[in-house]
């Protein structure tokens, strides 16, 4: 919400609750009675800071002094208004009213004493409100980090200004002569409520808030000064490098006692392998792949010949059995038809001319291995021989024996 809308909202609330506000103003004590029908109105007025719940006065709801002042001003109310921005003057005014009240009371001028007491009450309440508001203003500035300005120098100036203001208020609080007030009010219960309880409570609360504010402002000032010093240091270093291009700080690690700032450990590579399933490495992997693609591919002219993929005519080709295959087949057939055991070496007689014996024997084995399970079930191959006496994992076969199953 912008400030225009917020302002309109406040004025509308004043209009909406005009009756309640006026009744409270005219009551003399500025209090708003809490009833069922005023609950929502009170909530809204408190939220907009047009009314306050006075915890130090039994939690009653009363108009904010600012609203009361507005009414005073608009209605030209004649009131002995003593509250000033200067706390000292406000206190002087309160003391004056207290003395006047005592005198009127002692003289039996009841109407005057009632009027003085009413004005005294208003002035004490206004001073208390003023103290609370001033502390709140300071804290509002602190909480916003002096957000109205962006420049560091502006923030520093605002911080200094706030610090001065806080110190000024604290000094003013010290000047309040509570002892005299106590003396003046000791014989009257109404005045005691105001000057023994209410005002000292407000002063204590304000002092506490402002002490906290000073602490916070000093911390902020330290930080702001540090930022300003860093900025200045950076500028000075850049200027120094510009004017002295060969500038190199001393090697402080050569000193016997090496300064703590130089103790930073030299990094140790702790990862030896790439974890390709680690999703956190995805960016690095993508970079690597991206980098690989940055390499232009070699400029190789790719020459090719188009081949047709159309299948116009399918020609079935009959594969012819080789001579060895034919002979091996004959051996297997003989084994099956005669039901006899055939030695591979003996059957070598059937092999084609110029065939090597080892090739023949291997042909027997591979033909058997290449058979389907059903065909293999008709035969068994046996390898008579013995294990090597030294290298006992080696088996020396003397022959390959083909047997019917």
């Amino acid at each position, binding site marked *: 919400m912008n400030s225009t809308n917020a302002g309109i909202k406040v004025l509308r609330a004043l209009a909406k609750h005009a009756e309640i506000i006026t009744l409270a103003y005219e009551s003399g004590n500025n209090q708003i009675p809490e009833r069922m029908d005023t609950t929502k109105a009170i909530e809204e007025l408190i939220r907009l800071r047009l009314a306050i719940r006075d915890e130090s006065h039994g939690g009653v709801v009363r108009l904010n002094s600012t609203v009361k002042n507005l009414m005073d001003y608009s209605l030209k109310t004649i009131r002995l208004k003593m509250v000033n921005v200067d706390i000292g003057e406000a206190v002087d005014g309160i003391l004056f009213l207290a003395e006047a009240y005592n005198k009127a009371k002692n003289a039996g001028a009841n109407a005057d004493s009632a009027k003085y007491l009413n004005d005294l009450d208003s002035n004490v309440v206004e001073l208390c409100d003023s103290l609370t508001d001033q502390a709140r203003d300071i804290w509002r500035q602190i909480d916003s980090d002096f957000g109205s300005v962006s420049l560091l120098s502006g923030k520093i100036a605002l911080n200094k200004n706030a610090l001065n203001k806080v110190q000024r208020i604290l000094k003013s609080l010290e000047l309040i002569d509570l002892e005299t007030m106590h003396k003046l009010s000791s014989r009257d219960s109404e005045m005691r409520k105001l000057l023994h309880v209410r005002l000292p409570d407000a002063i204590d609360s304000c002092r506490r808030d402002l002490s906290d504010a000073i602490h916070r402002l000093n911390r902020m000032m330290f930080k702001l000064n540090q930022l300003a010093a860093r900025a200045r240091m950076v500028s000075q*270093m850049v200027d120094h490098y510009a004017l002295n291009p060969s500038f190199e700080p001393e090697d402080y*690690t*050569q000193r016997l006692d090496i300064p*703590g700032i*130089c103790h930073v450990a030299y990094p140790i590579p702790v990862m030896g392998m790439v974890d390709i399933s680690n999703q956190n490495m995805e960016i690095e992997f993508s970079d690597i792949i991206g980098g690989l693609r940055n390499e232009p591919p070699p400029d190789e002219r790719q020459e090719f010949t188009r081949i047709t993929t159309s299948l116009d005519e399918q020609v079935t080709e009959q594969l012819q059995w080789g001579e060895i295959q034919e002979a091996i087949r004959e051996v297997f057939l003989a084994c099956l038809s005669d039901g006899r055991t055939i030695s591979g070496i003996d059957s070598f007689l059937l092999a084609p001319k110029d065939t090597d014996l080892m090739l023949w024997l291997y042909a027997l084995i591979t033909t058997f291995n290449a058979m389907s399970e059903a065909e293999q079930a008709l035969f068994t191959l046996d390898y008579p021989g013995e294990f090597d006496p030294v290298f006992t994992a080696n088996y020396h076969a003397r022959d390959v024996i083909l047997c019917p199953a």
Partner: protein
Amino acid sequence: MSEVDQLTIIVEQLLAGRFICEFSDNTSYEYLSKDAYRQGVDSFLQRIGRRLKTTDDKSTYYCAYASIHANERRADVRRQFRETINTLEPLCRWLKLVMSALQRDASLQPGDVVRHGELLSVLEVSPALIDDLSIIVRSGLFATKRDAAKDQLNHVINGLVEQGYLVRHSPTSSVYTATGKWGYLYEVLEFVHTHETIADESSVEASTEQRDLSL
């Protein structure tokens, strides 16, 4: 993640020379913010001749040697310090460039946000800042042969991310956050500034000019 896993990650990061702060790795930073866990990491590092150290404002953790009496340690310390010193000039120039570009009177601090687009838009209309940038990339930490200001800016920002001075908000984002490593850099700067008695050159120049005029 289990406590042991977290400890492993933190120790590996520290040994790899990383600076841990709330902006660079908030999980690890939160872990180290707890006394018991921090002491656990510290005692682990002490077993291998190192210890956990923080910047002056306690906002950033890093690994330092527990003792540097051995000659080998001294050589490592020297090597590390030399690397840091070699980065001072380009980093200071970068800080000054950002201050000028964004018209700030405060230099970049941990937690500050750096927007690539914002910097580029200012650079594009400011020849003086482009000159400053070209000095930064001429040699040393950010050296590159790229001519275009945009490429040079990308190169410097990527270098800062690689060095741990900036963290990208997301893998595709062009918005970055400054980390606590700047805090350490400012401490080194302050140390050098104090011990090398670096004067305010601008005021020296001004006073020289004034003297010349009065003569």
